């Protein structure tokens, strides 16, 4: 009887374990599928709001327009179809607001009943026209043709240098500045955190007395427990003004500020992981080194650190991983200017900060919304690569 009950219990227990892990895996899978489902939608869609059309003259030979070209036309950086591979006609931009420049109210009729024919007339008369019209104003018997827009490609998304997701009529979804911003800030963070963290790890593993270590270790763990918004607040109030004064800048919100804050945030990971790695160095190797007359420092630099090299590499990559994904603190101190940074003293905008800052103002299901999800995919892929390389380094170490 007892044995039977035990068997039932074990079966139930097994089922609970199985279902827990199933739920967990499915959740992860669901989130990833959701992310990709929303983000992929950006690609192969046209970079213009629905229900709007660009119309050109029938004589126009240009096949299609990209979002970038549209932006340049609207900024008058491109003024002739020749520049786009068409005939030598200067571009005449026409939107519905320009109606009164060409026609009087009388000509259009009291209820705009003449509008379609007038627009047709205009298109016929001007071979260089580019009319940006809502569907409802497009004449039924169009004397021109709708020019298709280049669909957003992954390449344009990743290599585009301009991020103006809300600009009208041609939003720009180039994330290169955001990728570079993220990399700059993360790279700077690791540049700050690795020497400091490694030094602390060596100190704790090799130099500090047991008592000192017992004090240091909880302090470092405490550092990991501080919420990132507090780091951001600290950075904003202390670090940003300091950098502004120190380098005599117009604004202190810079990549440097982000790097320093992220560096501090990455420290606990780097210290803990490298200290563990340093501790795996066998005592017998250290003794061998000391017995040959090496000093303690020679032993650390020639035996202990090289032995722990792969662990230290893993630590720094994990640190970068933390830095790449960090949102709030970075959002608060980097100034969020979506331009490609050239020095650490410029404001930058990172991928996670962009998502956090803009998701609220994007319309659900719109292009901007999808673009932010595509950014999410990018971030996910970056961290996936980082985590995979950590695993690879670890497994190489084991073999």
């Amino acid at each position: 009887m007892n044995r039977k009950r035990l068997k039932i219990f074990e079966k139930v227990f097994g089922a609970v374990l199985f279902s827990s892990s199933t739920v967990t895996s499915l959740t992860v899978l669901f989130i990833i599928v959701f992310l990709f489902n929303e983000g992929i939608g950006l690609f192969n869609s046209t970079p213009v709001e629905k229900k709007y059309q660009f119309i050109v003259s029938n004589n126009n030979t240009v096949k299609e327009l990209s979002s970038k070209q549209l932006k340049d036309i609207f900024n008058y950086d491109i003024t002739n179809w020749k520049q786009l591979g068409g005939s030598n006609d200067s571009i005449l931009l026409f939107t519905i607001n320009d109606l009164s420049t060409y026609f009087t109210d009388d000509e259009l009729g009291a209820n705009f009943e003449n509008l379609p024919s007038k627009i047709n007339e205009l298109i016929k008369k001007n071979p260089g026209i580019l009319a940006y019209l809502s569907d409802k104003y497009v004449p039924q018997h169009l004397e021109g043709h709708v020019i298709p827009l280049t669909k957003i490609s992954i390449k344009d998304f990743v290599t585009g240098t301009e991020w103006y997701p809300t600009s009208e009529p041609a939003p720009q979804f180039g994330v290169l500045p955001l990728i570079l911003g993220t990399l700059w800030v993360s790279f700077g963070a690791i540049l700050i955190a690795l020497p400091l963290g490694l030094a602390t790890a060596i100190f704790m593993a090799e130099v500090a007395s047991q008592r000192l270590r017992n004090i240091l270790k909880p302090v470092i763990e405490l550092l990991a427990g501080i919420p990132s918004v507090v780091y951001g607040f600290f950075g904003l109030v202390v670090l940003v003004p300091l950098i502004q004064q120190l380098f005599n800048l117009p604004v202190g919100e810079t990549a440097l500020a982000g790097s320093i804050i992220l560096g501090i945030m990455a420290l606990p990971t780097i210290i803990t992981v490298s200290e563990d790695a340093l501790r795996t160095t066998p005592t017998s190797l250290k003794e061998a080194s000391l017995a040959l007359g090496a000093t303690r420092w020679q032993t650390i630099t020639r035996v202990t650190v090289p032995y722990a090299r792969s662990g230290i590499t893993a630590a720094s990559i994990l640190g970068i991983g933390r830095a790449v994904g960090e949102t709030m603190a970075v959002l608060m101190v980097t100034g969020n200017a979506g331009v490609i940074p050239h020095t650490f003293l410029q404001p930058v905008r990172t991928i996670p900060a962009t998502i956090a800052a803009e998701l609220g103002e994007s319309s659900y299901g719109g292009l901007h919304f999808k673009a932010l999800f595509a950014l999410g995919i990018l971030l996910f892929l970056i961290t996936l690569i980082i985590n995979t390389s950590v695993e690879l380094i670890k497994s190489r170490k084991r073999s």
Partner: protein
Amino acid sequence: MNLTNTLEIQETFPDIADEMLKAQTKDVNLYYKDFHALKNINFAIKANTVTALIGPSGCGKSTFLRLFNRMNDLISGVKITGDVLLEGENIYKKGIVVDELRKSVGMVFQKPNPFPKSIYENVAYGLRVNGYDHKDSIDEIVERSLKQAALWDEVKDKLKKSAYELSGGQQQRLCIARALAIEPSLILMDEPASALDPLSTSKIEELIYDLKNKYTIVIVTHNMQQAGRVSDYTAFFYLGELIEYDKTKTMFINPQNIKTQNYITGRFG
């Protein structure tokens, strides 16, 4: 060397008296916190001999061995009284730089512990950390040390390969070569063959026998036959005390102390 001590040793081991003593201990006591691990040890090591330290586990023989290169310093809570002389100089007096001392005392450990570096770099390590960086002479010393350790022929074509590619016995000879490269005046071996197979063990023993011409060796061993084969002198330790110290032959044939006799004949230990 002070006179009374010489006389004492002369009394105990008459044949050592005229020889130059490589190392000596005088009234050495060692404590691990409260534990009295070495009790009043007076000891002398003759140059160009092999001295075996034997005794059951925990008798203090390894601790005693590590007195001569101050490896016990690495353990916290160790207190040492008395004098340890190396070539007449007290190595525990103030002003002794420990890593300088360790350059003149080589050590071979129980398990082979080559560095995760190339064979060449393992042997060159001691030279490099001591600021020796003349490439040609390092080449020369590496070759000479490997030859002395009877390893040269086996590794001369793969000096750049990792030391971990060698077998356990080869690794241990590499560790011996590594110790020889810094030309120590005394070599300490802490059960150097205990982790090796019989064939490798016999190679190490032959090597120890050959090295005696040039070096002075102290070897801790658990293996009575090994002590009998390689050593000129044997010291028997028991519970932190030096029970008996004599020529190996004398001691194995005619031990003075009943404890020594019991241990050697395998009645305990």
